[in-house]
């Protein structure tokens, strides 16, 4: 049994340079725990996309991840402006990203779709005051 772990991170608006930091931390932790590499890959994809979404779309936010032997739960919460139409946003190619995001290689309209594909459980709540995304990845060792 590995110890339970809980960590919090701040994600700043438009901070492209540090996007990927949470994913990298989670990757290290999962590899240390000898988790199946296909599951690690799914966790990384979901986490990176969610980080980028906060960077691109929100006024800033945070991420908390909780890890135990059975599951990884990543919660992303931001301060808005919210997702207007969640079912549209989940569709491949639907994008509301800025020119800035596109210049950074994002904004393809794949983010939420990739998260949904990668996650075992995905919960989204959104209002103009903010969005809360909870991604659960069920873990299995190699």
């Amino acid at each position, binding site marked *: 049994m590995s110890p339970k772990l809980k960590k919090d991170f701040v994600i700043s608006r438009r901070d*492209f*340079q540090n*996007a*990927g930091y949470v*994913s*990298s931390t989670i*990757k290290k932790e999962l590899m240390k725990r000898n988790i199946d590499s296909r599951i690690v*890959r799914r966790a*990384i*994809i979901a986490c*990176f*996309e969610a980080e*980028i979404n906060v960077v691109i779309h929100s006024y800033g936010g945070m991420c908390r991840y909780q890890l135990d032997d059975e599951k990884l739960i990543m919660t992303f919460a931001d301060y808005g402006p919210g997702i207007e139409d969640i079912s549209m946003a989940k569709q491949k190619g639907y994008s509301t990203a800025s020119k800035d995001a596109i210049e*950074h*290689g*994002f904004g*393809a309209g*794949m*983010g939420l779709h*990739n998260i949904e*594909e990668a996650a075992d459980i995905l919960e989204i709540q959104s209002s103009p005051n903010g969005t809360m995304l909870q991604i659960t990845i069920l873990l299995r060792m190699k």
Partner: protein
Amino acid sequence: MRVNDLQHIEGFYLQTKYHENTSITGIFCGDLLSLVMANIKEGNALLTVISNYNVLAIAHLMKIPCIIFTTGVLPKPELIQKAEEEDIAIVTTNYDTATAVKRLYEKVSI
């Protein structure tokens, strides 16, 4: 294929040190990073025109040993240095992506 094979092809320039023996299992082309992340396989070289830290972060996370910047895109020295620290080979070429792929398939076995 190894990085070493790339730098012997005319028009491809290795920008990082000590990566000659890094092996590459295949190539993947893409500029939309979400698609890259969802589809690239471990060990592939990435051909792209996007040169920023996010590309590097994805390469690091996805175990991509080599990034080939095409179409004359030249990454900043800081990015090359960071790639070196993370053991990722950086190659640049003036060929556009399609021509670069054609050259690669002509010259090396992938």
